[in-house]
């Protein structure tokens, strides 16, 4: 750009000089010659500028552009790392929602059977990781509680209480038991759930929880 700037400056000087010469020279047949000389000067100035442009090393300005861009932009590795962190968090969030969604589904399906009371469902996932991140259901654990009517049934047949003085203190199991009918119903539900999720029956586990105070 400096060459063009110099050319423009030279042209301004030549034109202004030509204008003043035109005014200062006496009227006569000198004017065409002055115009001719000044025109030649302009041509020389333009040719000089063109030769300067041709001799210039154009590639010298290219490293400045790339160096400037590197200095002002963060490296691509840093950007990809930051993006992958967000991506990983997104996947974890989706996984958590998937787990809770499956748990809700299992709970709802188990709720269709009036013979059992599923209080909690735990879903264990097998996250293989990797690029294609295959998600498998490792196991489903249903926590089945004793139903209220189970306790009421048991309340009718309270075993006789024996008091023996002098014997060591023994933990007395006063909590209501899970009936065999509940167990049978829970197993049936577990089998249905396993079928529904295309799992083997041993992957749907049942945990029995005996609730205190008849709750």
């Amino acid at each position, binding site marked *: 750009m400096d060459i063009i700037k110099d050319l423009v400056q030279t*042209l301004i000087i030549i034109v202004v000089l030509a204008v003043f010469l035109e005014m200062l020279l006496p009227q006569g047949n000198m004017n065409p010659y002055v115009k001719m000389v000044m025109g030649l000067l302009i041509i020389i100035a333009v040719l000089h500028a063109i030769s300067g442009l041709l001799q210039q090393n154009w590639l010298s300005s290219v490293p400045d552009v790339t160096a400037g861009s590197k200095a002002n932009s963060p490296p691509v590795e840093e950007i990809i790392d930051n993006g992958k962190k967000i991506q990983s*968090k997104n996947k974890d969030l989706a996984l958590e929602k998937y787990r809770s969604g499956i748990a809700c589904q299992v709970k709802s399906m188990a709720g269709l059977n009036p013979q059992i009371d599923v209080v909690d469902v735990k879903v264990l996932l097998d996250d293989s990781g990797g690029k294609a991140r295959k998600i498998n259901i490792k196991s489903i654990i249903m926590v089945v509680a004793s139903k209220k009517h189970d306790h009421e049934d048991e309340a009718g047949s309270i075993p006789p209480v024996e008091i023996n003085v002098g014997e060591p203190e023994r933990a007395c199991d006063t909590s209501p038991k899970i009936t065999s009918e509940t167990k049978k119903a829970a197993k049936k539900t577990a089998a249905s759930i396993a079928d529904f999720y*295309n799992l083997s029956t041993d992957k749907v586990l049942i945990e029995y929880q005996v609730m205190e105070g008849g709750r």
Partner: protein
Amino acid sequence: MYKRCCRLLLFLTILLHLFPLTAYAADKAVDEQLSELDMSKVQKFVNQLDSEITGAVPELNFKDLVTKIASRDIELKPVELFKKCIKYIFREVVANFSLLGKLVILAVICAVLQNLSSAFEKGTTGQLTYMVTFLVLITIALGSFGLAVQCGREVVDKMVTFMQALLPVMLTLLVAVGGVTSAAIIHPVIFVTITAIGTIIKNVILPLIFFSAVLDIVSSLSSQFKVSQLGGLMKTAAMSIMGLMTTIFLGILSIQGAAGAIGDSVALRTAKFAAGTFIPVVGGMFSNALEAVIGSSLLLKNAVGIGGLIVISLLMVIPLLKIISLAFIYKLAGALIQPVGDSQTGNCLNSLGNSLITIFAAVATVGLMFFFAVTIVLGLGNLTVMMR
């Protein structure tokens, strides 16, 4: 009957549990990701904006702006904006009235002197006086023209700096939606081209337009020596370089972007297929949850992009209005002088106005290119997610 009821209930239960999950996941994810993103550079730039721009938009906080866009809480009033722009143009024109006055008075003096030149003993005395007055007029005109060129250079500089702060955030979110290949491909291209465009516009195109205007003025000094063709050549060269640059920039960006997006979407489709086919029907639930969370990243990326576009518009609008109002002043001065004075002065002012319009076009083209660059990066993410 009991079995049918059970099936219906089961189906309804599954449906009910599938849909709220996605919406909840998306809302939570947007907030989490926003806190994860490093927008300090963008905010730092926004804080450094001119008092004129911040006066138009009070308390411009980029993060708040993005949140508002993501939650569709922002109100854009195009009519109000248009009214403000018109008001600003009138204010600028009124502010430049002193320049207009100076130009018109000097031009009238020029015209009177030219008419009186025959009254002097020697015609050259009148001509010399006319020349001096004309040079004063040119000096004043070129002074404000130089300021307009400087203003254009500053805008380009600011836009390049802003793009360099905005693009890392957008590319990070592009990686978050799965566009790793796109980000890796587009990163060097976009940063080098943006810097190159900024440098070329500042150091080649705007000076060429300036030189062309100077040569136009010099040509009007004398009817004998004309260098206006050289000026025209410079202007044509500047416009050709700009056109070529725009075509190359947009072409490379769109082709590379599309290639990267297709590669990414194929990789992501494989991941989705692996998760979706293992368990029939409900197996797609993980993909749905993942899509909802990725959708939130996409929403955030689009909001950041739109926020960026708003800031670019704010950066551009005031200097561009200044340049266009100055061009109007020159054109008005040229139009007023034409019936009174000589054609030389009128043509000179008119050509200055035209050169200012060219500068306006150059700066607006840079803004438009950056607009397209942001839109292409936005589109890349959308394409990646759309093709999953």
